[in-house]
């Protein structure tokens, strides 16, 4: 995110920027998918 025009437009529209790369984002997604079953069970119980 170095494009000056993109950064200008983001500032004009008050868009928040705190970027992560695709690999960083995918690592979080993979961690979600690898959640142990007992944690998922506890999380589901919260929603009931």
């Amino acid at each position, binding site marked *: 995110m170095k494009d000056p025009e993109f950064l200008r437009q983001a500032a004009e529209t008050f*868009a*928040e920027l*705190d970027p992560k790369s695709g690999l960083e984002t995918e690592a979080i997604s993979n961690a979600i998918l690898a*959640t142990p079953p007992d*944690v998922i069970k506890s*999380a589901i119980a919260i929603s009931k």
Partner: protein
Amino acid sequence: MQEFSYIGSFANVNAVFMIREGAPATTVEELKRTPINVGCNTPVGVSYINPAIMKKFGELEFNIICGYPGTANLPIALARGEIDMVTGAWTAWKNNSEVTSAEVRPIIQSGLARHKELPDVPLMQEVICDPVGKNVAELMSAGSAVGRARLLLRAEFPPSGLPPFGMPSTNL
């Protein structure tokens, strides 16, 4: 999902527990002893799930009221004193006049890392002592860290790192 690759994420979308000035409890320690009313509009959104996590695993005395028809009703209920706390995205709250005038302030946040504008506001998993509870808080907060993400089909943007649509890699 396995057919898509992340290009990246523009920003985190941390949610915050916003408490009003004059609430019966206004610190995390006080919330462990003094009940407060927490407003919510759906049992499947952060306005319910985050307070429910903190009630069960953080042992906070929350009376969660899920009768509000939409998110727009919650700040009004907070201003009227019907409720003492609501949970919602910091990006939606931060320019609200009640926040800038300090009538309402964030006391806890959800995410995998503290928002850069909220370095002194603890994450849910930092308040919770129970190990399973910490894991549940991190799991339910992980979507905040993915945040404003963008995806492309792997066929269009293979993991080799080629930039999409001819965008110069220096702009990524």
